[in-house]
């Protein structure tokens, strides 16, 4: 008789805090199980609700006390139940998985963040990292768009991003709905408005795929090259560790080769219809 322990086993984590971010979006601060490694910006975890299922969710913050935040948008069966969880509840976690943002390569460079909707979540740790290591990086530009003002994430700290030294924050919404001083339109419209030095910028993009394609086109226009552009991809995932096959995009497994890819790396496939 032989018992085989597999991977794919969620370990219990306790929800220590829940923050309502926007309609149908909540952030869960988790006390991770013992032995859980510190996640790097851009990495994700598999979150599991007992008997309900598992979803890949990016780490959206690591607090000073070591709580790991996940910002979850209700999208389907699992996220719907997950979003109902409250402080004290236990959920399962595995991770951290994937390759994150190029924070090392970006040392000494300007960083441009372009985020759409929930796409800001995996980029928040980058902002945090730059804030904490401010001297190591050049200018930080944050371009963030959401459907409407009330859909913006992290409203309670968004403005503070602008007060990080040498940082430009531009916001955009598809539809204004009430008082709104920022841009109305696509987040990509902000690119020409921002002050970007194409020679020394590393761009990090996360959002819906078409938004990312438009962004890349705009970045070309301002003079960025493929090797300066990084994007975080999304694909169906059932395992998160390169076993189940679902997340393939061309020859790449988004879960382990990504989710963050340099654009030059995936360019050949990324633009192909239904690849």
């Amino acid at each position: 008789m032989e018992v085989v322990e597999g991977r794919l086993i969620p370990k219990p984590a306790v929800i220590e805090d829940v923050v309502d971010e926007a309609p149908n979006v909540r952030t869960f601060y988790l006390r991770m199980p013992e032995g859980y490694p510190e996640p790097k910006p851009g990495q994700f975890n598999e979150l599991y609700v007992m008997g309900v299922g598992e979803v890949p969710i990016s780490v959206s913050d690591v607090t000073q006390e070591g709580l790991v935040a996940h910002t979850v948008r209700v999208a389907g069966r699992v996220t719907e139940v997950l979003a109902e969880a409250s402080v004290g509840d236990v959920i399962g976690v595995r991770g951290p998985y994937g390759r994150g943002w190029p924070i090392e390569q970006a040392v000494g460079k300007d960083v441009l963040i372009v985020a759409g909707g929930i796409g800001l979540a995996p980029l928040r740790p980058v902002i945090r990292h730059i804030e904490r290591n401010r001297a190591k990086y050049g200018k930080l530009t944050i371009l963030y768009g959401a459907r409407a003002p009330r859909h913006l994430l992290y409203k309670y700290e968004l403005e503070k991003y602008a007060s990080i030294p040498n940082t430009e924050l531009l916001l955009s919404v598809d539809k204004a709905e009430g008082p709104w001083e920022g841009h109305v339109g696509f987040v990509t419209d902000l690119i020409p408005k921002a002050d970007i030095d194409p020679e020394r910028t590393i761009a990090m993009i996360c959002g819906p795929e078409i938004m990312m394609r438009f962004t890349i086109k705009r970045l070309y226009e301002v003079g960025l090259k493929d090797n300066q552009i990084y994007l975080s991809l999304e694909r169906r995932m059932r395992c998160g560790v390169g076993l189940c096959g679902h997340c393939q995009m061309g020859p790449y497994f988004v879960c382990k080769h990504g989710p963050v890819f340099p654009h030059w790396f995936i360019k050949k496939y990324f633009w192909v219809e239904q690849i």
Partner: protein
Amino acid sequence: MVSGGIYSGKFGELRKLFNALRLRGYRVIAPKLEDSVIRLKEVTSFDEVPYGWEDIQAPGKYSVREGGKHFRHGPDAPKRILYPPRLELFRLRPDWSVEYPKERFPPTALFAIKPCDLASISVMDRVQGGIGDPYYLALRKKLIIIVENCVEPGATCFCSTMGTGPEARDGFDIAYTRLDDDLVVFRPGSDLGVELLSELNIEPATDEVLRKYYDALKNASLKAKAPFELERLPDELELGLNSPVFKEVAERCFGCAGCNMVCPTCFCFDVIDEPELDGGAVRVRVWDGCFSYTYAEVAGGNFRKDLWARYRHWVLHKFAYWVRQFGVFGCVGCGRCITWCPAGIDLRETIKSVVEWVRSRGGS
């Protein structure tokens, strides 16, 4: 005395070899005729192995007849044994403690499998083994492989194009070849193979036998060819990503994912999380395939909602992406996806057409 050479003996030595495996306590999995199909099943007697039977395979068609000299692989690949179609991974109790199913992985011998299937195991070694799938490794560790080289490849075989047959190169314990009714050539491929062969009444092959052997295999290799070459194939296929061929073929495809299921290397799985009435849960792994609609579906969209895109992904994965991912082709040329396609679609034709399309446009 046996060491790493080529030996010959009578047909009866195969029986001895089979029995030796059983005596050593191996569960022997071998070809077996069941309801007019050659299956890969546990076999307890050598007489169950369908020597004297032949299968006839064509796109979407399969039959057997008695009196033929050489059988080939049926629908079951070693994947079924090493990577079961449905596997309960674990149960979680309500307090989050984990319970593992007490599965037994008995020492297993694969007997008389074909070189393409042997090759599929080495592909799986790179895929499942490479990523450390513990279930796979637990079974793989105890596996012994006796392979039967192919003297007569079938009509859907293209192992010689894929470089996986009709002669097994490595990764086996013993390879044997049936040259004629009572002449069998043996080759050990491991220490265990040498040990097993020493128990047989065989002798180093004479020059005449050797000549016969090489001729037979050479002949066979001329037959198991596909209408394309491997050289530059991955690149050519990637140049053909926008070829209309995929859409044309997909018109005939049902999207049933049968090919994914019979392919000896397709490894995708779905995870099924199911609640239990007591508040715990169970996680089950089942074979999935890239032809299934939900395969690339996410909340709010589907990356490959059209069947042609799924079909293209499959072909590209096997013949291009796989090479980039694991350093080998994902196809071993067994032809199962051709024979067992209920729509009778011939993968070889698809590839040929895509390559032609690419070349006609000056690509490559």
